[in-house]
């Protein structure tokens, strides 16, 4: 049953400062921006939140920049802005590739990187990229700013260290030293939610991350250690099986995901050097 709009409330702060004050006074407010997940939840009754705070017009949370060799993407930056950014195309092509496969143009025009992180779905397409890129999440509340390594941002299924009075303001990524690789496996190239996806970096760094194979995004450190140590693909695949826990759901089966994860690992290793 779709939610009747009159049962909902919407705060519309004019600035980031105002938004943080509102959240400090009332941490039960749920931040919204591109709304691509929010309205699905409202329409199908899976979202219980009724009181929202709208971030969409906060220009301070948009924009892509490089400062001291760190790429900074504002939380409200849309997938379209990422795809069109020459900075991201050059520094983080795997994020451009992932963004191109999020929904279609209409979703890419509205969905935001910060929203993908905040929504905390195990199937969030950009999350393996952020893990492989060694990203940091910049959080702010009315008192100040803190930065959390993406590796330690999620604490469980759809749970993160973000406090109710905090907003994700930006995602930061250091320069990546190595070849970037991305692959999403879904029912259809456009629109379909992922069955499984993998992002990886091979170079001085070797970082391999999977999505949709566990309650949160997984950094496959054991598989990477095998490959870094000169081990075989088969040994790396065996190590990978111990660090992911894919399940059966509406989109796929655990068995399929386990097999495809191992195949993706081999494909990545064969296609990069």
């Amino acid at each position, binding site marked *: 049953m*779709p939610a009747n*709009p*009159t049962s*909902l*409330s*919407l705060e*519309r702060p004019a600035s980031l400062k105002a938004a943080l004050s509102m959240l400090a006074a009332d941490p039960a407010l749920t931040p919204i921006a591109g*709304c*691509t997940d*929010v*309205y*699905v939840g409202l*329409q*199908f009754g899976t979202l219980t939140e009724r009181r*929202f705070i*709208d971030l*969409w017009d906060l220009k301070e949370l948009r924009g892509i920049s490089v400062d001291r060799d760190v790429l900074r993407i504002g939380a409200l930056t849309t997938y*379209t802005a990422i795809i069109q950014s020459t900075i991201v195309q050059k520094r983080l092509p795997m994020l451009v590739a992932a963004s191109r496969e999020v*929904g*279609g*143009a*209409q*979703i890419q*025009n*509205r969905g935001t990187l910060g929203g993908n992180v905040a929504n905390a779905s195990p199937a969030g397409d950009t999350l393996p990229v952020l893990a492989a890129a060694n990203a940091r999440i910049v959080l702010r509340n009315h008192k100040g700013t803190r930065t959390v390594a993406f590796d330690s941002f999620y604490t469980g299924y759809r749970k993160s260290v973000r406090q109710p009075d905090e907003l994700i303001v930006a995602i930061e990524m250091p320069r990546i030293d190595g070849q970037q690789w991305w692959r999403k496996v879904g029912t259809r*190239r*456009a*629109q379909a939610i992922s069955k499984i996806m993998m992002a990886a970096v091979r170079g001085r760094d070797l970082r391999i991350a999977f999505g949709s194979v566990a309650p949160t995004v997984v950094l496959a450190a054991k598989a990477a250690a095998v490959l870094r140590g000169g081990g075989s693909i088969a040994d790396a695949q065996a190590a990978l099986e111990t660090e992911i826990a894919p399940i059966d759901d509406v989109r796929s089966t655990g068995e399929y995901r386990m097999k495809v994860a191992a195949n993706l690992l081999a494909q990545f290793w064969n296609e990069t050097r």
Partner: protein
Amino acid sequence: MKLTVNGKTRTVTAHPMKRLLDVLREDCGLTGTKEGCGEGECGACTVLIDGVAVDSCIVPLAHAEGRKVITIEGATATRTGKALQDAFVVHGGAQCGICTPGMILAAARLKPGASEHDIKVALAGNLCRCTGYPAIFRSVKSALKRGRAR
């Protein structure tokens, strides 16, 4: 709340969280915008906000406030929109018609001479259950032939 719909300023008395789709259909009486899936998957409800294609079933009215919205009724009043509409008729790009307004608005942002790849990317967020797409791609390609569209 004030917004411009197809060039006309409208003042709407509705909840800021009301879906733009419902505002257009119920408050503005513009029923050309169709609801398909209601979850941003099928693109049938595509409209343009300040020239950007969005699924109006997952956009709150608040995000259209003070902005320029173009629906299918307004799109076909433009040269590109008219060319698209005519081409869909000539090439059989429409069957049941539910997806057609969204297809035309999603294609309206393409440049003349767009490649088949560009067309497929632009329409990736629009589902059709009748034509199987080739007729739609042919329609768009024909409409975007240099000289016809702007």
